[in-house]
């Protein structure tokens, strides 16, 4: 009888860490964006994606709201905003 102490790959996606946010989330204004992709690089969750300018956005199912994307954006095109209840953005 073998019960492997293994997990399948990428199964962490079942865990919606967006529920961790408490009161604020990053808002991607998508106006000045130069597609430098620094926000994509600096997100510890790896949940920011985008392609051309002004297409970058967090996957709010996973975004924990740390705010490093706001700190790193060279054109201040991301801002932290109040979030009343994460459920609206997750479901």
């Amino acid at each position: 009888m073998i019960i492997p102490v293994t997990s399948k790959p990428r199964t962490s996606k079942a865990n919606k860490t967006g529920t961790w946010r408490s009161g604020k989330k990053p808002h991607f204004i998508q106006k000045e964006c130069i597609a430098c992709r620094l926000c994509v690089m600096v997100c510890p969750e790896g949940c920011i994606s985008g392609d051309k300018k002004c297409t970058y956005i967090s996957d709010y199912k996973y975004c924990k709201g740390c705010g490093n994307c706001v700190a790193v954006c060279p054109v201040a095109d991301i801002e932290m905003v109040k979030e009343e209840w994460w459920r609206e953005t997750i479901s």
Partner: protein
Amino acid sequence: MVTELFSSGHTACVGCGQALGARLVVETTGPNVIIANATGCLEVFTSRYPESAWGVPWIHSLFQNAAAVASGVEAALRIKGKLDQVRVISQGGDGATADIGMASLSGMFDRGHDILYVCYDNEAYMNTGVQRSGLTPFDSRTTTSPAGKKSFGNPRPKKNIPEIANAHNVPYVATASVAFPKDLQKKVKKALSIRGPKYLQIFVPCPLGWRHDPGLTYEIAKLVVETGLYPILEYQDGKLISLKTIEAAKPVDEYLKLQGRYAHLFTERGKGEIAKIQAIADSNIKKYSLLKESKEVQKKMMEEKPSEEKIFTTAELSKCDGKDGRPAYFAYKGKVYDITGSDRWADGTHYNMHFAGSDLTEALVEAPHGDEVFERFKIIGVLKM
């Protein structure tokens, strides 16, 4: 960039520098790697059964043996003739690397295995509750080196693991910080292009352990470099091949004041301690010639011989800062470019990150573009070394 090798949904703290570092590493290595991970935060927050954040084959055994397990993986791949297609990464925190795993790391270096060892340096045993490790910096407060009436925190300096790695004659040793992600990724790529044991130590802030705002992870990882406290170096076969120079060293206070683990130093009693930490930074700056003006460093970095064109000294270049009607020039790899009037250099600054009148050779590493964008600018001279 392949995000499916380190997926979201892991349970790292908000703003975790180590999660960031690990993601950057594995996204650079690509899928054809096997990772041996030591016990620690990274292992715990990525592998809570039945969920795993890893999209590459990954094994966790114990605390001190990541390098030894990786050695076994490498030996197996070698005997199967697969070491060309599949590479081996071994990784752990500062405790796993510099303390309990020191012997197995040394053994891995000594035997010459083709493994890249990555140390995520958050400067304490974070997973078990912020206890002091061999890489905890001087005067940092941890639960086992607390500050109190009779103590300013950890009384010892950090162990210099990069130098220990170099002493083992390994072909590649580097340090990095998550504030310079492209530099980090470049180093991972460079490491994987070399066969043999490699060591990469990455500075990764820990909002929980260091008591800082999670949104300051990037800023703190940048400041530690800009103060000179964490030199960003790169060695190949024991010779320094690159380092991140600093324009003007920021005082250590700017870095320390953002973190609760140093809060006890911002008292009447603690002032003298800050001076000691400044001395560490100053000593690093001197030892590694971190300041931009250092001539030896500039010589090392320069790739081309000076030509017959107009020669600018650093002082002359610095006057061409694009302010108050002055021309805007910058230097790159020894050549001086004219960017006066460019709309991306209004008032002599580029997105508030870079300044005309300076040498931007190093800054380009982190840029979202390559040097092809300079083609539209006129070269009007060379920078005197």
